[in-house]
């Protein structure tokens, strides 16, 4: 299959390892990976801040650039929700409405694509560590992704997955929210971090680099021993 990999701006600039791991996995499964270099952001920061006209301008480029793509795989539940759920709303009653709906229909979050679309759960990875999984809110509650990443992790050799009590609680990132209300955001992150530390895991795994940036930012500042890693990076570990 020809897969268009949508690498969120976050992953592109700050966490390229996660993006490269996705390329490696999809190619290993025998697919052709494409990457559209003209796209840099899905427009979510403007959309979530209420600036829908500006968001639409940014999103228009994405919709047009991906028009001919067969399938779009996106390495983030948050940007995935933007394309899959919010583009149709953003373009409602505009000339691009149909195209936005078509893009939404062929867009899949990475773990969801592997498990549900390709039916793959075992990628032959080895990761001899204790991990706990953080459900990103958009992936979990906008896209309904809960078991897919866990199924993938359960087939990794040597891994121990322990659930934290607050797995489904928000990490407190929330895009511009984290800068507008830094103290609430950090307090929310503290709840998440403490819950993860309680499990005595070595790593917090997630499908969203933005959540991991928030969590790692707090962990580093507070000198807590647990580390963060993107799901795709775990799945290419040997």
């Amino acid at each position, binding site marked *: 299959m020809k897969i268009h990999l949508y690498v969120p701006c976050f992953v592109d600039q700050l966490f390229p390892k996660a993006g490269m791991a996705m390329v490696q996995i999809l190619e290993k499964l025998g697919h052709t990976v494409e990457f559209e270099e003209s*796209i840099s952001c899905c427009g979510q920061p403007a959309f979530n801040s209420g600036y829908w006209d500006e968001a639409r301008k940014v999103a228009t480029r994405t919709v047009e650039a991906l028009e001919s793509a067969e399938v779009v795989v996106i390495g983030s539940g948050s940007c995935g929700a933007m394309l899959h759920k919010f583009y149709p709303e953003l373009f409602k009653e505009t000339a691009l409405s149909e195209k936005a709906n078509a893009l939404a229909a062929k867009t899949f979050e990475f773990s969801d694509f592997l498990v549900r679309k390709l039916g793959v759960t075992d990628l032959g990875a080895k990761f001899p560590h204790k991990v706990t999984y953080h459900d990103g809110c958009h992936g979990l509650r906008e896209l309904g992704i809960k078991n897919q990443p866990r199924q993938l992790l359960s087939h990794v050799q040597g891994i121990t997955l322990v659930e934290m009590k607050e797995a489904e609680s928000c990490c407190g990132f929330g895009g511009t929210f984290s800068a507008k*209300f830094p103290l609430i955001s*950090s307090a929310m992150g503290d709840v998440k971090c403490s819950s993860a530390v309680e499990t005595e895991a070595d790593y917090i795994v997630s499908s969203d680099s933005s959540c991991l940036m928030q969590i790692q930012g707090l962990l580093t500042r507070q000198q807590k021993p647990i580390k963060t890693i993107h799901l795709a990076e775990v799945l290419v570990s040997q």
Partner: protein
Amino acid sequence: MSTGYAKEFKENSGRMSQDLTHRAVIKKALNAYEVKRDENRSKYLDWQEARQAAAEIKWEAVNHLDRYLLEMTEKLEARGTKVFWASNAEEARNYVINLSQEKKVQSIIKSKTMTSEEIHLNSALEKLGYDVIESDLGEYIVQLNEEAPYHLVFPAMHLTRGQIKEIFKKKLGSNTSDQPEELTMVARDIMRQKYLTADMGISGANFGVAETGMISITENEGNARLTTSFPKIHVALMGIEKVLPKLGDLALFLPLLATAGGGQQITCYNTMIGGPRLNDEVDGPEEFHLVLIDNRRTELLSDAEQRDALHCIRCAACLNVCPIFKSSGGHSYGTTYQGPIGSVITPHLRGLQDWKHLSLASSLCASCTDVCPVKIDIHHHLLHNRRNAVSQSPVWWEKIAFIGFTFATAIPALFQLSIKIARLLQPLHGLIKGSLIDPARAWTQTRDLPEIPAKSFRQQWKERK
């Protein structure tokens, strides 16, 4: 965020977020609730189906309010109820005040009603010299402590037993231990006297029933039943959105509210009131007044996108799962209705520009929408409020920033150049990190930034081709 309300919210919520004692008190209270809620939710054949059914009934009611309200009031009036339609808070307040004056009322007892908080009834009555006492224990405690309810359903959840003991000691001169039973007995002794002497009982209404012309009150202490039956005059305050079409609808809504709101299968007391005491009846109030309150609800009704916010049954399930609420605390909101649903409806009830900050104070995690028993699209409405606030009146510097954002993202090379410059400067960032002159202070005050990698994904992608 230029309004005074926004500034206050930011200061108070920021302070409360760092208060670990507060967080522990709230966590303890909510943990107990969560266990009971989940236990009782599991008794439903299908909780999701129950939510769907409830949402459909509310949809029907809210979209035909004109019909159902008239059906309800005609039947109530036929049984001697005085119905007053209040367009706003002032009209509602004045009706109660005029009635009190006309009937020479001296002492008033109240059961829990958030609508009375919304119209600021207590302070208006107290200003005129009326003795007003709250009979719901939690409400009574916050009344004694001279503060607003902390939470829609659990008004005193932020106070520990020890603190309540101290409040009772200071305000009532009681000398008990901090055992809930003993504290309750102190309040009960005082209230029993009040029930006998009060001339007027004021209550809320959890639901109205069109089919039979009744209001329904649900509670756990029996105080609402006494408040509505002992005094000669009963006044019920009810938001116009509370009406349900059929009596049978309560078979779903009473347990639904109890489970979502209190983690109960059903509340201890459920009362239906259809009018004042009839000629051949031996008890009940001589007069029953129902004050129906609009107070900008019809404006929300005219907003097709957010109309479902009128489905709200004030169960507070969304507060109980909201990480913003748990961090900020109920008082930080400065509103009658706290938490996610408050952040949605307050801008409608009290002005979008003054209250838009509440819609921004959300990570949009959707926990609220997930638990809402009547399926209000809460977190998406926060997005809608943000959009509406911007289209009404954009914040100038944000507007410039986002126009810049559209250009920067249009030219990926420009976007990358800015990141490259940031990477070159990052080693110097340590010198000012977290300080007042740090441009990233909002982040770095409490968190570290990731190190910008030498090569972006797109560089690596190009190189491997």
